[in-house]
C-alpha cells in the first residue's frame, strides 16, 4: 500500500481552491500582504470553487453557475452538478487558467479564460463573445485539438458550462484589476469593496453583456454573392485568390501563397505566449520560468487540410467571421470594419476569400 501511495500520489484531496494569478511576475514582487488582500477580496466577491458567488450587479445566472461548480455528482432524476470539474478541469484548471493537469502535453494549450479573450466568436474585433459562440465551441469542439465536442450534453448543462466560463472570465478580469491596483499602483490596503466592484468587476461584466444587448457589436454578414453555378463559383474563387494575395489583406505572410501555412512569418505567438518570448533564447528561458506552461509557437492554418478550428458553418459563415474579425488573441487580423477601424475588405470581398479558402481544401 505504501508503494501504491508513492506511485499513485498519496494523500486525501482537500477541496480545490482558486489560485492567484502570479504568472509573469517574480514571486518576490508581490508581498504576502498583497497576496492575502487580493485573495480575500476575490473570495468575498466570487466565493470558492465549491461555493461560488456571483457579485451583485453581475448578470450571471447564479443557479447555472452553481450547477457547473463544485464536485461532480447527480441525483436520481439525472440532474447534474459539478459539470466544470467533470468535463473541463483536467485541461482548463480549477481557476480557468488553461493550465489543468494535462495542459502541458497539449498543442495548442487549453484556453486561459482569465483574460476574457476567446478565439472563435461572431463579434467584432475587441468585443467579448456571445454566449452562443461559447456554446457553439462546446457543441462543435475544436477539430485537431484536445477540445472535445460536448454535443451529448443536455442543453441546460451546456448553458451551465457557458455561464461558468463567463464567471471564471469575469473573476479573472477582476483579479487582473486587483493586481494592477495593489501591486502595480500600490493602492492602500485594505481595499474598498465598492470601488473594486465599480471599477474592476462591473466593467468586466458589462463587457460580456455588451454584444448580447447591442447588435452593432455582432458581425452581420452581408449578402452572399451568388455561387450557384460552377462558373460563378470559379469567378468568386478567382476573385478571392486575388484578394488573398493582396497587400491589404496580407494573408500570404503567414498562410503562404499556396495556403499551406508556410508563409514567411514563422515566429508567431498568441497573446498567452507572447509575454514568454524574450529577445534571446536565454531571456525566453528566464521568462518561461515565470509561467506554468513553456512557450508554444503558433502555426498558421494549412487550408489544404480542411481543418478550420472555429468551424466552417452554414455556407462558410464561421469562416466569414474569422476573416472579418480575425482570431482574437492571435496575430490573425480582421479585415472587416470594427469599432474605430474602417476595415480593408467589403462584405462581398470577404465572401470571395471564404470561397477561395474553402476551394483549397477541396483539391
Amino acid at each position, binding site marked *: 500500500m505504501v508503494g501504491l501511495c508513492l506511485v*499513485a*500520489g498519496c494523500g486525501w484531496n482537500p477541496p480545490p481552491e482558486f489560485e492567484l494569478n502570479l504568472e509573469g511576475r517574480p514571486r518576490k514582487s508581490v508581498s504576502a500582504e498583497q497576496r492575502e488582500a487580493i485573495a480575500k477580496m476575490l473570495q468575498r466577491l466570487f466565493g470558492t470553487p465549491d461555493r461560488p458567488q456571483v457579485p451583485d450587479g453581475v448578470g450571471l445566472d447564479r443557479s447555472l453557475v452553481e450547477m457547473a461548480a463544485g464536485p461532480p*455528482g*447527480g441525483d436520481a432524476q439525472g440532474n447534474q452538478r459539478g459539470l466544470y470539474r467533470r468535463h473541463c478541469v483536467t485541461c482548463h484548471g480549477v481557476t480557468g487558467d488553461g*493550465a489543468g493537469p*494535462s495542459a502541458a502535453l497539449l498543442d495548442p494549450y487549453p484556453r486561459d479564460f482569465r483574460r476574457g479573450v476567446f478565439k472563435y466568436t461572431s463579434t467584432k474585433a475587441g468585443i467579448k463573445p456571445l454566449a452562443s459562440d461559447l456554446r457553439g465551441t462546446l457543441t462543435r*469542439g*475544436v477539430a*485537431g485539438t484536445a477540445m472535445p465536442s460536448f454535443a*451529448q450534453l443536455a442543453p441546460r448543462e451546456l448553458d451551465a458550462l457557458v455561464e461558468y466560463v463567463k464567471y471564471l472570465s469575469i473573476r479573472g478580469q477582476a483579479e487582473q484589476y486587483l493586481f494592477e491596483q495593489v501591486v502595480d499602483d500600490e493602492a492602500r490596503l485594505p481595499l474598498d469593496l465598492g470601488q473594486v466592484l465599480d471599477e474592476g468587476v462591473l466593467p468586466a461584466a458589462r463587457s460580456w453583456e455588451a454584444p448580447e444587448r447591442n447588435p452593432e457589436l455582432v458581425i452581420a454578414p452581408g449578402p452572399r454573392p451568388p455561387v450557384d453555378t460552377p462558373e460563378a463559383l470559379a469567378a468568386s474563387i478567382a476573385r478571392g485568390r486575388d484578394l488573398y494575395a493582396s497587400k491589404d489583406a496580407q494573408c500570404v505572410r503567414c498562410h503562404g501563397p499556396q495556403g499551406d501555412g508556410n508563409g514567411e512569418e514563422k515566429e508567431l505567438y498568441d497573446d498567452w505566449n507572447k509575454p514568454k518570448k524574450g529577445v534571446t533564447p536565454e531571456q525566453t528561458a528566464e521568462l518561461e520560468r515565470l509561467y506554468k506552461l513553456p512557450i508554444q509557437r503558433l502555426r498558421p492554418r494549412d487550408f489544404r487540410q480542411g481543418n478550420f478550428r472555429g468551424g466552417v458553418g452554414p455556407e462558410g459563415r464561421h469562416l466569414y467571421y474569422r476573416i472579418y474579425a480575425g482570431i482574437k488573441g492571435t496575430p490573425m487580423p480582421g479585415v472587416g470594419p470594427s469599432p474605430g477601424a474602417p476595415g480593408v475588405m467589403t462584405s462581398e470581398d470577404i465572401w470571395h476569400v471564404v470561397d477561395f479558402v474553402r476551394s483549397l481544401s477541396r483539391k
Partner: protein
Amino acid sequence: MSDERVSASRGPEEDRTTRITDSPSPLPPGSSRCAWPHRLAWALACATFPLIWMGGLVTTYGAGMAVPDWPNTFGYNLFLYPLQSWLAVWDVFLEHSHRLIGAGVGLLTIVLAAGLWICDGRRSMKWLGAAALAGVVLQGTLGGLRVLGNEIFLAKVHGCTAPLFFALASALVTLTSRGWHAHERIEPGPPQAWSTRFGWVMVLGIYLQIVLGANLRHQAPDASVGWFRLWVWLHLILAGSVLAGACALWAVGRGRLGHPMLVRRPRLLAALVVVQVLLGLATWVVRYGVPVWFTDYVWKVVYTVEAGSPLQAIVVTAHVAVGSLALVTALSLRMWAARVGRAARSDNPAPTRPAVA
C-alpha cells in the same frame, strides 16, 4: 463425478508426485480433487472481468458520484432499487449496475471461500479463499468510502486494487484446475528459471502500468502539470519495456519451452500487450485528439474528440480491461513456469556435491 477426480498416485508416479512441492502444493497422494471450487473460481473470474469493465465505464463517464449514498442507492436497499429508475438515467445505470455486479461477485466469493474451506485439502487454498473474501470486502468498502467521502484518492486506490482481486480470482482458477493437479500430464522440459524469474518482472511491470494508468484517470482537479506529464512519460516508457519483455518472452519461449501452457501463455501475453499498447495510443487520441506532430509529419488527419461518445467510452475502458487481462495472463505464465520448472527439477535432480575429504 469420477471423471472429475484425478488420482495423484499411480505406481512409479507416486514417488515423483511427492517431490513436487509447488506452492500451493498439489493435493496429497491418495486424495481426490473436488471440482466445485474450480467451477466457482471460474464463475468468480468471469464475473470479475465485467465488473472491471463496468468500473472502467463509471470512471470514463465520470459517473462515480452519480449515486451519492452507500451501501443504499438513493435510500433504497441495493437490490430493491426500482428497475425503472435504474434504467432512466445513464450515470445512475452505470454506477448502480457496477454495485450490483460487485454484490454478485461478493456473494460468489463467499461461496468459493466456503467451497475451498470444505472441499480443498490444501491449507494454503483455504487461506487463499479467505484472502479472496477479505479482498472483495475491502474492495467494496473502498468503493463505498470513495462515494461517501467523494474522495478521488480512494477512487484511485479502488481502481488499483480491482485488478489485484481479478488476479487472485484467476490464480484460484489455475490452482484448482485439473491440469495443476495432474502431475503425470506435465511434460518436464528444461529448467524454466529464466521465464520464472522474468515472469515476476512482467507481473510487476504490468501492475505498475495499471497503477500509473489509474493515476492518470483519477487526477485531482488541482494536480500540477508537472506531475501529469511525469506520469504520462513513465506510462509510455514502461509500456515500451513491458512490450519488449512480452515479445522477448514469446520469442525466447517459442523454441524452448516444452509444456503447452508455456507456449500458449507467452503468445497470449504478447498479443494482449500489443493490443494494450494500441489501445493506449487510441485512448490518447479519443481523449486528447491526434497529436500535432502526427498530423504534421505522418498523416494529415482531422479528428474531433467527442466527449462521452461510445467510441471514447469503449476504447478507454477497453484499455483498462485489457490491462487487467494482461496482468492475469502474466501471473498465469509465472505460475505455470514455476510449476513446470519444479516438475523438471524433480525429474532431473541436481547432482549432489561430493563430500570434501
